[in-house]
């Protein structure tokens, strides 16, 4: 995953609360290998009419080159499917700006270089107001924590550890393996003080009682 510090792109407004990850990518597409690209599935059912043709009024259809999504409260709630983030990233998105995010979605986003930028409801309205027919150019400064849309500059919040990770494009596994001794010690201590934690071998337990 490549790190980044600044991004210049097109912003699009999706003024809807509670966009859940089932909307971001419907479950039926999730058996697709990632190599085929998930961008085609982003908000698949919301952006299409019943017959399957694209709904011309839908913001993402009107502004197909967007890379910054400005959305409502509780964005990415629901299912832990990281495919929701893959759909955004593969469609070219670099950031989602919203008043709040589902907890699992936000950490999945950071793990894929996608910025979940927290901005107050009032500031979100201001940003949306700056857009022309729901779209417009925007700039994000990750290090300083600011987003610029039209004439407005709005600060966003982001956990410091997440900021560092996005900037450096770190892979957690590499970081964690540097702590292998501490992990091994924790494991051995747990073995000693709480051996019951390790699952019993199945066949040792003769009294299989299934469901009570």
């Amino acid at each position, binding site marked *: 995953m490549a790190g980044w510090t600044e991004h210049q792109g097109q912003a699009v407004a999706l003024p809807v609360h509670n966009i859940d990850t089932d909307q971001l990518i419907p479950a039926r597409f999730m058996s697709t290998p990632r190599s085929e690209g998930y961008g085609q599935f982003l908000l698949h059912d919301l952006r299409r009419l019943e017959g399957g043709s694209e709904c011309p009024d839908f913001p993402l259809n009107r502004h197909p080159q967007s890379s910054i999504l400005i959305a409502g409260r509780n964005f990415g709630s629901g299912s*832990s499917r990281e495919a929701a983030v893959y759909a955004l990233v593969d469609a070219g998105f670099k950031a989602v700006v919203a008043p*709040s995010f589902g907890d699992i979605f936000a950490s999945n986003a950071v793990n894929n270089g996608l910025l979940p930028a927290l901005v107050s409801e009032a500031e979100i309205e201001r940003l949306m107001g700056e857009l022309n027919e729901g779209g417009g150019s925007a700039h994000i400064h990750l290090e300083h924590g600011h987003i610029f849309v039209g004439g407005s500059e709005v600060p966003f919040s982001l956990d410091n550890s997440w900021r560092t990770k996005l900037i450096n494009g770190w892979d957690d596994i590499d970081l*964690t393996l540097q702590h292998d001794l501490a*992990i091994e010690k924790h494991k051995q201590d747990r073995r000693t003080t709480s051996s019951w934690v390790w699952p019993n071998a199945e066949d040792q337990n003769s009294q299989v009682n299934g469901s009570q």
Partner: protein
Amino acid sequence: MTAAASLLDKLWSSHEVLAREDGTSLLWVDRHLVHEGSHHAFAKLAERGAAVAEPELTFAVVDHYAPTRHREHIADPKIRRMIETLRANATQHGLRLFDLMDPAQGIVHVVGPEQGLTLPGLLVNCGDSHTSTHGAFGALAFGIGATEVAHVLATQTVWQKKPAAMRIIVDGKLAEGISAKDIALNWIAKLGSDGARGHAIEYAGSAIRDLSMEGRMTLCNLSIEGGGRFGMVAPDDTTFAYLRGRPFAPTGGAFEKAQEKWQKLHSDEDAIFAKDVSLAAEEIAPTVTWGTSPEQALPVSATLPDPSRLSEEKQKAARDALDYMGLAAGRPIEGTPVDEVFLGSCTNGRIEDLRAAAAVLAGRSAKVPGLVSPGSALVRHQAEQEGLDQIFREAGLEWSASGCSMCVGMNGDIVAPGKRCASSTNRNFRGRQGPGARTHLMSPAMVAAAAVTGTITDVRPLLKGRAL
């Protein structure tokens, strides 16, 4: 004197390998559960040429894509490939796999507890948001994404910032016909679908103590629908009795020793919670959702909201939801005709759920078709021993094999576009049960009532004179 600790504090500190200066902790994972959806994570592991760090603590379950009919010949090549991929990964890494034909196969959040893999004091991870279910045992259990699944596979640890502690106290006695599902929909309706965002919920109070393990699992399962990644209940005698004799649980002296430790897993009396919420059990009625978010829930006796009377913020969402659901503002919810019913899922697919539904359906016929998918093969077996399958079949419902089934529709069990389903599941999101499907969430007993009348119905009159 040490500061008073919450259950969350105690569980957190016993798993913390290290804490970084930025406040992120590296936590040791005691149980890692994987399923077909974990294929992205195994692919990441393969890219690095890494092995599973602790195969002994990693368990694989076929559930999300598990066919509920004709398991021997899976027609859909995509579904077959998902299951075969999990099989190949489990074989390669030496993981115990609960495969399609395993007598203990089932939904991961049903199998874990049923097998005694879930124990108090453990940290349980799974790439599924309903992992909070396992918190019913006093475990620190939370759903993670694919990158984190790969991380746990490779290191048996997970990086996590400690959430804030929240407590939901439910005191009093639930009325007959009211269950954990109603408690959950009730608090989510009150606090919103992000009411517990950033928090770990501990459920406490006399009504929670009175719940069976099945009920506690339903409640903890639905934490995520209120935005809480974690839900938990302090373990007690109900917990210990459930666990004794489970296949992977400690035995004999080891069990007694473990139980001594488990008994200390509760919040200290003066522990501090960032959010504290109280509900009165007596005030909880059978609750159903009417919209496309779990927070859009009301007592069955209520009328559908009039968007113009809601706060400005909720108006548009309510209008859109009523439109999608094909419902008219101001009309009573009760009496809304349904096209079908579904009983099952990690929320309400356990034996107690099937018993509650069967108590309503016994000697009655369903006016609409429906599917019953037990949460596991063992639940199915138990239900058949008790004759519950006969009750469902005689009522006209289909009795099938276990899996996530129509809760998420990945295995092909879906609700047709525009059709209305009374469902014992966890999400009424647009298209969750299939494109254009209209879902009403409710308890298993309420689903059974909807089957009997063909409409959304208060179950309580149907329970009169019946032994529960």
